[in-house]
């Protein structure tokens, strides 16, 4: 089954999901130093930028295969509603970056009770 790609080959691939309080953004970025990631959030946009570097091997080596790509990346996504940038949580484990973006209070829909 082919993978569905929305970004037409843009790195890193992301999955975004939501519940009532937060957006959850997960991106596959293996082999990155977390300090080299630049994550910023404003209103309803979040951007992730960084550089994937593959360390040079010191001795004389001959390559059989070289399939892994390296380079700079910079991606911005627009979320369906605004988030609170002060409370965004970012974690990096096992090559997956997980951002928890709390929805801004004023952007959350209010339940409206119907009077009879």
């Amino acid at each position, binding site marked *: 089954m082919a993978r569905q790609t929305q970004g037409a080959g843009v*790195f890193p691939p992301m999955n975004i999901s*939501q*519940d009532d309080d937060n957006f959850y953004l997960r991106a596959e970025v293996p082999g990155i130093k977390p300090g080299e990631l630049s994550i910023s959030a404003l209103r309803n946009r979040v951007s992730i930028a960084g550089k994937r570097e593959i360390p040079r091997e010191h001795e004389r080596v001959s390559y*059989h*295969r070289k399939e892994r790509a390296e380079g700079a990346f910079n991606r911005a996504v627009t979320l369906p509603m605004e988030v609170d940038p002060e409370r965004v949580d970012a974690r990096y484990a*096992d090559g997956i970056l997980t951002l928890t973006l709390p929805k801004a209070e004023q952007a959350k829909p209010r339940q409206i009770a119907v009077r009879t």
Partner: protein
Amino acid sequence: MATEAATDIQKAEASNVTTVPEQTRTGAVYSPAVDIFENDSSITLLADMPGVKPSDLEIDLRENVLTLTGRVTPTGTSNESNVLREYRPGTFFRQFTLSEAIDQPKIDAQLTDGVLRLELPKVAKARPRQITVRSA
């Protein structure tokens, strides 16, 4: 090999493995991108397997066939609904036939940040020996 024109990283299409082995559970199986290189003393394999913890990685070497299987534990609670879905987590699987004799007890595997580094030291007799040519 052609050089890349852009310096920005492009996302590689995940190649889906459809041949053996098929898992009993449903789910995608992906072939991880690898770099393989060798020097005189060892062969080194680097594989990108994001989302795989060291406890979920199996490395098997028998009869010169190296098999890598990396399982991904699904994250997220059932309360979550999807907004954007660009990748589907799946098991990583790849097999290689090694042409060199490997010193099995000295194999070293390290998995950090989703990148596996596998060092396969060659058996001493498989290392190239320089043969000097004498002039008669």
